[in-house]
């Protein structure tokens, strides 16, 4: 071995490289993998042996194919969701499962603020997770009557505020407007929805927390969360890529100790195709081994649990009206065609099956007009596709990234309200994708659900809801091996980075997750509980913070 080679010894290395699936040692030089094998094969010449991981299990670093930089911003605020989450500092933040617990968490946070009447923001609330109970202004008045208290829902589309905030925004009396929900007393309940109410809120409070520029600290927090969860390649799957953001990403990713590879997707919504294509040409100059520009995101419809996804017949199980198009159906083929011709890989958000069908129609038209080998356009979420839609994906060369975490977080709502028993059983149909041979990944959409690929894999393997119901477990569940592939090489493939990351084999980046246990021999029901020591990125070990 040439000088400068380090050989990591491990209890076991799961390579995700089918031609050499397991090893005990991996040799690394210049941040890349030289070879995998045994001590005898690799400890030759002046190779330096590192036995720090001798009792640990190495896998390729996890690849999160659909998450957002927002995850790095949220943790400046208290978390009031119903389920446990881990912070970028590695702290286990327990879920708060009822109104009293939410109020107690907020009071605790309020007590730590200076007496300056500044606003208290919190995040992660979802009434579907606490038996449909909504936070009222009276609940939040128990936190403070002197400063604004604003709770942002897990969906990011709804805010609940206290009476003080409503008074400042002059919304307490403005009932009977759809975005200002009224309470039983005829006054505003504190629930604010939609753009007009949000704008009034921001104007009354004097700031728009959702339009602030991101900072290098936010990006580093995002990278820290990645390390805690064993992620070495992470997306930021919808970004306007303003000059400011591009500069922050350049600066953060070129810092010598930056801890993750970042893959931002340019938001199509804020650009015409020719502008977007020109912008990508420009930002590609900033690409480095930890920053990978080039993909574009299109958002076709809304969310299923928000009843804004577009569904085919028979529509929503509870009879709710069909959802919203965010891109007009006649506009989508034009957009897809423009990016397809420019050689750009598209990531197309489609939650409902009508949106999925429309996206496949658009890709088919673009492929017919200009056949392009290996385009790998990828459907994101794609939660309601049936077997026929998966067969079309296969035939069109389309990949899919399924939202496995939904099974646990909203599976009960999908069974009872949105899709009903049959369609809920094939929600995020990983088994169908596997059988038909559509290249696929699974994802968290963090911060919508927690960033934690082992948890995402656990969802796809166990297919159990938070209420304990199994959804299509016999037909759609993955084996542990298949699920581990989906969070490594499968996700890398959907990002067209499978030649660089996603498996441990010669020539690729030396990106590993360091596990305390072997996920292939552990009880599959404990997959999410396997402890993560940290990661190795480009050959450099980083122990995950534990607070």
């Amino acid at each position, binding site marked *: 071995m040439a000088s400068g080679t380090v050989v990591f010894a491990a209890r076991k290395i799961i390579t995700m490289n089918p031609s050499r699936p397991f090893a005990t040692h991996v040799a690394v030089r210049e941040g890349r993998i030289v070879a995998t094998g045994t001590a005898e094969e690799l400890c030759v010449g002046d190779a330096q042996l590192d036995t720090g991981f001798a009792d640990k299990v190495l896998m390729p670093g996890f690849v999160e194919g659909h998450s957002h930089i927002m995850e790095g911003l949220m943790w400046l605020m208290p978390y009031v969701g119903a389920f446990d989450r881990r912070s970028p500092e590695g702290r286990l933040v327990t879920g708060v499962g009822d109104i009293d617990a939410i109020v107690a968490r907020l009071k605790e946070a309020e007590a730590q603020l200076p007496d300056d009447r500044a606003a208290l923001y919190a995040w992660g609330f979802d009434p579907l997770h606490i038996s449909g109970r909504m936070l009222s202004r009276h609940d939040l008045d128990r936190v403070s009557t002197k400063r604004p208290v604003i709770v942002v829902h897990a969906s990011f589309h709804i805010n609940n505020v206290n009476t003080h905030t409503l008074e400042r925004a*002059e*919304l307490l*009396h*403005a*009932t*009977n*407007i*759809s*975005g*200002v929900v009224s309470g039983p007393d*005829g006054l505003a309940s504190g629930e604010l929805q*939609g*753009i*007009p*109410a*949000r*704008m*009034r809120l*921001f*104007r009354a409070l004097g700031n*728009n927390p*959702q*339009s602030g520029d991101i900072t290098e600290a936010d990006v580093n927090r995002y990278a820290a969360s990645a390390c805690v969860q064993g992620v070495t390649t992470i997306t930021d799957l919808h970004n*306007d890529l*303003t000059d400011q953001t591009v500069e922050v990403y350049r600066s953060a990713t070129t810092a010598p100790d930056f801890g993750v590879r970042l893959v931002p997707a340019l*938001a199509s*919504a*804020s650009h*015409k195709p020719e502008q977007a294509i020109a912008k990508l040409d420009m930002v590609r100059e900033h690409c480095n081994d930890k920053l990978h520009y080039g993909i574009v995101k299109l958002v076709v419809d809304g969310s299923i649990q928000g009843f804004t996804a*577009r569904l085919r017949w028979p529509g929503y199980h509870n009879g709710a*009206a*069909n959802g*919203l*198009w*965010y*891109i*007009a*159906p*006649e*506009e989508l083929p034009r957009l897809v065609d423009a990016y397809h011709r420019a050689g750009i890989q598209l990531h197309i958000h489609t939650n409902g099956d*009508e949106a999925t069908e*429309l996206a496949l129609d658009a890709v088919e038209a673009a492929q017919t007009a200009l056949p392009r080998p290996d385009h790998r356009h990828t459907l994101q979420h794609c939660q309601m596709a049936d077997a026929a839609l998966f067969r079309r994906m296969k035939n069109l060369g389309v990949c899919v990234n399924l939202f496995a975490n939904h099974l646990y977080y909203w599976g009960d709502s999908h069974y009872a309200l949105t899709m009903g028993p049959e369609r809920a059983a094939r929600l995020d149909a990983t088994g169908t994708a596997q059988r038909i041979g559509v290249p696929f990944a699974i994802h968290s959409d963090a911060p919508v659900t927690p960033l934690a690929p082992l948890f995402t894999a656990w969802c796809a393997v166990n297919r159990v809801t938070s209420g304990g119901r199994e959804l299509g477990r016999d037909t759609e569940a993955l084996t542990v091996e298949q699920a581990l592939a989906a969070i490594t090489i499968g996700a890398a493939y959907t990002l067209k980075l499978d030649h660089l990351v996603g498996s441990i084999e010669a020539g690729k980046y030396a990106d590993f997750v360091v596990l305390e246990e072997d996920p292939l021999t552990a009880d599959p029901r404990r997959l999410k509980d396997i402890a993560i020591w940290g990661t190795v990125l480009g050959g450099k070990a980083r122990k995950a913070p534990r607070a």
Partner: protein
Amino acid sequence: MTPASAKIPVTVIGGFLGAGKTTFVNHLLATGTARTAVLVNDFGEVNVDMSLIASHDGDTMTLTNGCICCSIGTSFIDTMCRVLDAPVPYERIVIEASGVGDPWKIAEIALIEPALRLDQVIVIADGSRIVQLAGDARVGDTVRSQFDRCDIVLLNKIDLVDADGLAAARAAVQGLRPELRIVETARGAMPALAQLETGPSLSGFRVDSPSLDGTDHGAQFSSWCYRRDGAFDRAALADALADMPPQLLRLKGSCRLSGQDGRTIFQMVEKVWSVSPDTVDDIDHGSDIVLVGVGTADLPAAAMLDAILDRALVVEPVLSFTPYPAET
């Protein structure tokens, strides 16, 4: 707090992709006189005579006639705030809604934001495609819902259809809301905003539509004024408003609410209403309650409407002014 008189009127322009929203915006910009701020989705399509453009900084185009045109870009809220925070307030704001959006969802800004008042929601329909679009399996529900709360429809591109096609297009719109006022338009034959005005100060007027076949599709309106001393009970008012006949299109003015000091600004458009405190007390309003309503020509008699609102008063009404009968 902003006095009602100083509130900036807001016009929202909705309509499906390709209906002609941008053509209308171009027309408004070219013919604009007041300091009008126009917010558009897509700058690229805006086509204003170069001689009209005073400056152009990428996000905002300033015209020599006092109008500005702003690209909504990545954040509607940020763009809207920039317009609201202009050092010299604009006299009118026109917002182009997204082609797949519900214009009412944007119009609510003018009901919520104290500096604004809602003037009208205009939906533009492509006369050559509306029949097909309204029945389309994928977009029909989106297209139809855009008309739910609009004040007026511009049935556009009528130069592209024959008499039967025009009749079918009108029927498609009227099938959604029979009372809807429809103005026929075409490129080069578009009305000014003032011609579409339905404000409470106007009573009984018609718009001469630039229709090519010369038929008169103007609409008749009637107004009603309610004046009382005393105050409303909030809950009873909500019930009374729910009982108002559908012919009443809007109701605006000031009133007092029982248990609250000071006057309250009241706005109702269709059946959606809002109240906000009015802190300007140096204006003599005369009666405690003054509300002006505008409805379709068949608006029920004033006495009947008065009786509905009287049920919401907390004290016996003292007649301070004889309500005048609806004008047409």
